[in-house]
């Protein structure tokens, strides 16, 4: 029986609430992530993926709803010890490797920061040794430890961010586009690495990305977001074989393939949210179309989808 590690319940995150510039970055989403699994989150740019990650890791307070980690709510008042323990258990690899590395710190100290905070090393030698190991784990080497972030290329910086997240032995990692800045071979290395670490240490991942072929490869289940809402959620294979929501279909039809002849003739399926033409009395909700496969739709759409699936 799968054990729930993270539960997101009716989570809402509104920026500038009540003002004309209000943005409903997350608008009532719910999902769970089981221990040891990888949950992929994909969707349009600006649909709220990073905000979801950031709210889970408590960078933002939630406007409404709840996030439970191991059965305990992460938001609200907490003791210092609880906060520290949560901070070690949950780590985030940030989308922007430039903004998230302190330019005045050497790579050694950036990676060791978490080790220091959580008292995970005995002395300077041990500290250096641990950092070198981490650098090698992510495909860098010990010469890089004494350099500053601006001396690295984009992909190299992203790997520093990954090493930093891994340093404190977390159990749950939110990876916000961890590989999009990397070249394909290093993407493959990092994805293989994340998979190995998962097997070895039983890690759980929330994997946010745009590259659907990689997401499919790494994820057990995938959630598709559109404008602050989860529109579809299914086991990875199923989502690719039987996409049901028109946005998911549009997304899958737009994946560029490394094949110039195919690209010259590709046809994309556009998505227009107005095409749903939901009536005011129609209930639009998450419905289970096949085991573990959920779609946001109206009753009418649901019936049509069921026919389509057969």
């Amino acid at each position: 029986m799968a054990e729930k590690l993270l539960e997101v319940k009716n989570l809402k995150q509104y920026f500038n609430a009540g003002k004309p510039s209000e943005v409903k970055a997350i608008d009532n989403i719910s999902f769970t992530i089981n221990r040891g699994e990888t949950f992929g989150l994909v969707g349009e740019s600006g649909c709220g993926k990073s905000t979801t990650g950031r709210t889970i890791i408590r960078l933002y307070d939630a406007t409404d709803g709840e996030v439970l980690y191991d059965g305990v709510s992460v938001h609200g008042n907490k003791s210092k010890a609880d906060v520290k323990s949560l901070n070690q258990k949950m780590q985030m690899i940030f989308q922007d490797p430039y903004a998230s590395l302190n330019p005045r710190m050497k790579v050694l100290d950036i990676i060791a920061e978490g080790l220091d905070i959580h008292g995970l090393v005995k002395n300077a030698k041990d500290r250096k040794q641990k950092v070198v190991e981490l650098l090698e784990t992510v495909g860098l080497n010990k010469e890089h430890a004494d350099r500053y972030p601006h001396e690295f290329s984009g992909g190299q910086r992203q790997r520093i961010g990954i090493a930093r997240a891994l340093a404190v032995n977390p159990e749950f990692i939110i990876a916000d586009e961890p590989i999009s800045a990397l070249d394909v071979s290093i993407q493959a290395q990092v994805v293989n690495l994340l998979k190995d670490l998962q097997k070895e240490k039983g890690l759980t991942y929330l994997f946010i990305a745009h590259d659907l072929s990689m997401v499919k490869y790494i994820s057990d289940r995938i959630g598709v977001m559109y404008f602050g809402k989860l529109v579809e959620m299914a086991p990875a294979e199923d989502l690719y074989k039987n996409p049901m929501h028109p946005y998911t279909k549009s997304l899958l039809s737009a994946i560029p393939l490394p094949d110039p002849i195919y690209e010259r003739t590709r046809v994309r399926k556009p998505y227009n949210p107005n095409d749903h033409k939901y009536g005011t009395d129609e209930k639009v909700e998450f419905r289970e179309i096949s085991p573990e496969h959920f779609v946001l739709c109206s009753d009418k759409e649901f019936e049509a989808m069921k026919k389509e699936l057969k």
Partner: protein
Amino acid sequence: MEKILQVKDLELSFHTFAGEVKAIRGVSFDLNKGETLAIVGESGSGKSVTTKSIMRLLPESSSEFKNGEILFNNHDLTKLTDKEMQKIRGKDISMIFQDPMTSLNPTMTIGKQIMEPILKHQKVSKAKAKEVAVELLKLVGLPNPEMRIKMYPHQFSGGQRQRIVIAIALACNPKILIADEPTTALDVTIQAQILELMKDIQKKVDTSIIFITHDLGVVANVADRVAVMYGGRIVEVGTVDEIFYNPQHPYTWGLLSSMPSMDLEEERLYAIPGTPPDLLNPPVGDAFALRSEYALQIDLEQAPPMFQVSKTHFAATWLLHPNAPEVEPPANIIERMKTFRGSRYYEETTGGEA
């Protein structure tokens, strides 16, 4: 074909605490008018540094220009004064940077930032500049531009910031647009829109584009020609079909083999073994040799010259030397070559075609 930009024998180093990082070690290429040249290659291979040196945007304190010419309109950009260069930057040549957050000013509204190059290079009123700014934001698909123009960069998502940066780069209809990973932060549907937009603008004003990306699917979609970089050099260059269906350099083979396919069932992805070359002490011969199962003895002793494969296709690998042994590329590469007329594995497709 008219050449709008020629880069010749570019060599460039950084001086760091650890020593001299030889980041660019002899790079030459041409950019034709109206074409899209994609630069692909390993992380750290010198793609960004090459293009930043065209824009003369490298830190003067730590970078050293060692050799080479960069010809634009018959002017050697490396010889211009800073003032002359400023007139070209943002107007004739503009760049979309890899890191959208650092290329936006966090303390200035995005509207001001888009209007800035317009006011600087075109003689228009403020009101007109604002109109253009809103128009550009609409073009790159940012919802609600009239209102959002008053917001600051941190109030946007990663991909939205990237689209703002693209809008700024397009503001003055540049002759050359250098786009460093412009769509990496975007989802595939918006990516497709932006690629269409770039192609449209290219057609309208005959812009030439240098497009740096890791996404080989995007390369297949946008590029006319492709240059493959490794260890501070271009190791292969050709038309997009030549690079995808008849690649010659073992690094290009490795790169194409690392792509996951959509109907992939295998447990592990192929990753090129080993680590990138140390640019403090670059290897003497073919920089890729130590990671390549196809390496010859000579690869460790002498850097290969560019061998010509076709009128448009060149690759720097000793495997193309007439005396080199014939080697068998990886299976998936042979599959690609089978479709390419002119490759030694070409198979005439039989049947099916009426």
